[in-house]
C-alpha cells in the first residue's frame, strides 16, 4: 500500500463478523466479497492471520480456496512456522490493504501478537487505512472486550480496545456464549456492545458503526447496554447482502455441519494426516 502514513478517520475501517466468511461458509462468499469491496485498490493485498487457531492447515487452505481466484493478492502470515518468508513482520503487515483475522483462542491470539509486537503493528496499519476484518476471536479482538472459551468455559476477556464497547460472536450458533456476555455487561465487567449471529458483520468507519450486513436471511444482531444495573436490549436487523444462494446453502444447518467438520479435522489425533 502506498497511501499516506495517517489516513483520515473515515478511511479507517474494521469489519467484525460474528461468524462466517471462508472459514465457516465455504459455499457463501457474500461476506468475503463485501470485505474486498471495502478498499479502493483494484487488486487489493489481503493478509490472513490464522494465529488464533494455531495456524491450522484447514483454515489456511480455506482462505486460499476462497481468495485464490478473486481479484486480489492473498497471502497468510504464520507466527508458528517460518516457511520461506523471512521478511520482517512490519514490512509484511504494513504492505496490506486488508488484514483478515481468523477465529480460535482469543487469549492465545492476543498473547502471541503481543509477544511478536504485532498488536502495535496492526494498530499502525489501521491508522494508515488498512481494513481490519475478522470473525469470532478475530472480530472481538478489536473491541474493549469480548467473550472467550480459551480456557474451556466462556468468560470475559479484554481486547485491544481499538473500538469502544464489547462484542460477542456466534450468538445463535454457540448458545452458551451469550449468557456469559450478558452477565459480564450487567455486572459492569464488560462495557455494553453488540452480539452478532453467525453470518452477520458490523462495519466501523473510524470508531463509528456504519453498516450491519448479513450473508443469511434471519440472522440478526443485538445491541445491549447496562443502564442502572438493568440490561437494555435492541434487536438490530442487518441488510442482507446479495441474493441468498439456492436452497439451504449458506444456511445455519450447513454452517453448523461445517463447524463440526472443522472441529473433527482439528481434533486430528484420530485423523489420517500424521
Amino acid at each position: 500500500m502506498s497511501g499516506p502514513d495517517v489516513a483520515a478517520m473515515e478511511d479507517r475501517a474494521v469489519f467484525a463478523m460474528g461468524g462466517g466468511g471462508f472459514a465457516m461458509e465455504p459455499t457463501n462468499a457474500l461476506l468475503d466479497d463485501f470485505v474486498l469491496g471495502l478498499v479502493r485498490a483494484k487488486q487489493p493485498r489481503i493478509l490472513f492471520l490464522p494465529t488464533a487457531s494455531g495456524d491450522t492447515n484447514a483454515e489456511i487452505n480455506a482462505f486460499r480456496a476462497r481468495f485464490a481466484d478473486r481479484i486480489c493478492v492473498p497471502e497468510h502470515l504464520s507466527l508458528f512456522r517460518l516457511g520461506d518468508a523471512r521478511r520482517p513482520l512490519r514490512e509484511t503487515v504494513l504492505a496490506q490493504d486488508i488484514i483478515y483475522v481468523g477465529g480460535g483462542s482469543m487469549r492465545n491470539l492476543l498473547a502471541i501478537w503481543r509477544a511478536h509486537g504485532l498488536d502495535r503493528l496492526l494498530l499502525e496499519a489501521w491508522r494508515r487505512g488498512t481494513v481490519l476484518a475478522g470473525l469470532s476471536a478475530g472480530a472481538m479482538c478489536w473491541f474493549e472486550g469480548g467473550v472467550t472459551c480459551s480456557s474451556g468455559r466462556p468468560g470475559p476477556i479484554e481486547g485491544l480496545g481499538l473500538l469502544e464497547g464489547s462484542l460477542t460472536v456466534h450468538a445463535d450458533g454457540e448458545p452458551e456464549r451469550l449468557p456469559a456476555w450478558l452477565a459480564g455487561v450487567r455486572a459492569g465487567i464488560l462495557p455494553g456492545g453488540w452480539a452478532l449471529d453467525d453470518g452477520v458483520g458490523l462495519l466501523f468507519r473510524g470508531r463509528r458503526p456504519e453498516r450491519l450486513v448479513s450473508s443469511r436471511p434471519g440472522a440478526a444482531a443485538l445491541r445491549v447496554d447496562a443502564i442502572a444495573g438493568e440490561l437494555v436490549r435492541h434487536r438490530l436487523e442487518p441488510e442482507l447482502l446479495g441474493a441468498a444462494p439456492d436452497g439451504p446453502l449458506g444456511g445455519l444447518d450447513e454452517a453448523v455441519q461445517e463447524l463440526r467438520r472443522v472441529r473433527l479435522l482439528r481434533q486430528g489425533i484420530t485423523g489420517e494426516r500424521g
Partner: protein
Amino acid sequence: MEKDSSLLDDYVLSLAGQAHPRVCFLPTASGDADHYVVRFYRRFSPECEASHLSLFRRDQGAGGIENDLEAHLLAQHLIYVGGGSVVSMLGAWRAHGLDAVLRKAWRKGIVLCGPSAGSLCWFREALSEFHGSSTRVRGLGLLPYSNCVHYDAEPARRAEYHRFVGDGMRAGFAAEDGVALHFRGSSLEHVVSSRPGAFAYRVEPAEDGVVETRLDAAFLGPEGAAPDPPALAPGGAPASPAFAPAAFACTRPLAV
C-alpha cells in the same frame, strides 16, 4: 522425535526412571499442529502413559487435557516440549500461567525436555530467528545461560550467536542438530547425540569477542564410543537427592 532415530527419545525416557512413565507433550510452539501430536502418540504411547496439552483447543474436547492444567503437569515424570516458534510459545504459556507451572514442575524434579524451541525456552536467554533478523528472547530462566540451536544448520547461525554473546548476551551453549544438552540442576552433566560427529559448544564472552569451546557428544547409537555418556562436570554441583531438577535440551530440525 527425530524422523530417523529414536535415540534421544530413548535417552530422555531413561531419565524418567520409570517402567511406564507419564509423559505429557506440549505442542504449543507449533500451534498444536495435529500431525506433530500424532507423531508424539505414535512414538510414546507404546511405552508411556502419554497425554498432550493443547492451548488452542481447550473448548473442544480434542483429546488433550482441558481442565486442571497444573495438576496434570505436576503429575508427570516427563514434560516434552515440541519445536516451532519460541516467541509464540512463551507468549501463549504466559497467558495461561504455564510458565509458573513449568517452573514448579522443574523444582519438583519432573524432567523437562524438548528440541529447538523446546530447548531454548528453559534458558535465561535464547537466540531466535523468526521473521527477519535474529532476536534475543527471554526464556523461563531455569538455566542461567543463553542457548542457540541448529548451530550447524546455517553458516550465519554461529556468527550471529557469537555477535550476540559478544554484545552482552550471557554465556551459554550451542548445539548442532542431533545433539542434546543434559543438565542436572543448572549444571551441564552430559552431552549426547543421535549422530556421530556432532558437537555442542560453550560460548563465552571474552575481552576480544568470544571464546568457543567444543564439547564432545557421546553418540547414543550402536557404534557409539561409550555406552554410558561421559560425565562432563564431575566437580559440578549435583542436585540434592530429594531435589533433582533436570532439563534435557536438544536440537534437531523441526519435524513438524
